């Protein structure tokens, strides 16, 4: 729950503005962008995700730093398991 997971935005949805498809270590899931409405990310940008919601934007360098930190804290597997655990939305992810 307290994991901060860096994820790359790979797709934005035209119909549901507040959702995006992101990728973490090859796993693709949807996250909610509703907490970044003041400064929405574009495709290719990185966000920091907590419990399925993007909380802040970050540079690629910062994202890779954060991934490395999770690895050295022994939390990388838990982070990937969390992202894999986000429910798959068949309609939009496909």
């Amino acid at each position, binding site marked *: 729950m307290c994991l901060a997971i860096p994820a790359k935005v790979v797709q934005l949805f035209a119909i549901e503005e507040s959702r995006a498809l992101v990728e973490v270590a090859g796993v693709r899931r949807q996250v909610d962008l509703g907490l970044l409405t003041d400064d929405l990310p574009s495709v290719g940008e990185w966000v920091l995700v*907590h419990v399925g919601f993007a909380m802040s934007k970050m540079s690629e360098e910062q994202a890779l730093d954060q991934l490395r930190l999770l690895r050295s804290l022994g939390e990388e597997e838990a982070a990937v398991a969390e992202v894999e*655990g986000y429910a798959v939305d068949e309609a939009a992810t496909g």
Partner: protein
Amino acid sequence: MKFVDEFREPEIISRVVAEIRRLADPKRHYRFMEVCGGHTHAIYRFGLTDLLPENIELVHGTGCPVCVLPMGRIDDALELTSDPKVVFAAFGDMMRVPGAAWSPLAWKARGADIRIIYSPADALKMAEKNPDRHIVFFAIGFETTAPSTALTLVRAREKGIQNFSVFSNHVTILPAIRAILDSPDMRIDAFLGPGHVSTVIGCKPYEWIAQREKKPIVVTGFEPLDILQSIAMLLRQLQGQLQGEDAKVENQYTRVVPWDGNRAALRAIAQVFELRPYFEWRGMGFISQSALRIEEEFAAWDTERRFAIRGVRVTDPKAAQCGEVLKGVLNPAQCKLFANECTPEQPVGALMVSSEGSCAGYYNYEHRKTLYSDCCSSVRCVP
């Protein structure tokens, strides 16, 4: 320096450690509290206390939401599952946390419908897919997770989903810091401010700590270098205070934390939640205006309004000295129960409950180290 070689940028780390040793007055004992459980975990994991001079003590604070949740709230939640319509959805972190008699995991093994979810959005999705069930989301966390719960409630209302409610256990970090500062046996000199909570609330809400309480505070990242740099910044402030300078809030974690926080997230919290008059914190007792309940406007999605909640109170055993450890009066090993009756496998007190709790961290890294250091010369020998 023993482990510096294992870090990235070992030269910079060595330089900061040398700076810390130069800044620390050998005649003085320093107690710095890291408020966030994530910092506690990083400090133990990276063995950072081994790099610090002996007169700098890191006191591990209140910032683990799982640890400070009173056991009675778990019992209250488990009771809800006696209604066959109810599905109890919780983060995995909660599953092993014991109530008075059962943990959610043990209760699930006895047949209750308890499911692990990773996002409140998924609990809402579960409600949409199971219209004949009622999904109770067990919400927990500081300002880092409260906005996500809030937004999920906004979405529930937008979609008109009726079979979903939130059992809010959200707490806020500032009243806990105030409670620590107000306690008569408090011995903290300065604070390492939380990283991810601050991405939401920003740095301004900490100003009273510097201005009124005259305690320096530095919002800190989670890398070894971040934590060490922040310790050096605190020492510099304390030195400046001797020359008549004012304590201040500094932001070491600027790459992630904006000074004003995340306004959209703060709006979501304000829209959905209001402060409870008081809330119990395990190990600390009742703290006024320290937790969030759901606003009247969202009453239809508030578990506490929709169901009869007994409000179970479970007191920790008197011998557990969690409060003293939290305030820095005792270190974990000085508690009478530490490693005897209270272990991560069988936690008695709050701080042993989660891996981010200070006693569990101390046990897993420091205590095991002393257990095994007798057998050979390697202090890094940890099972």
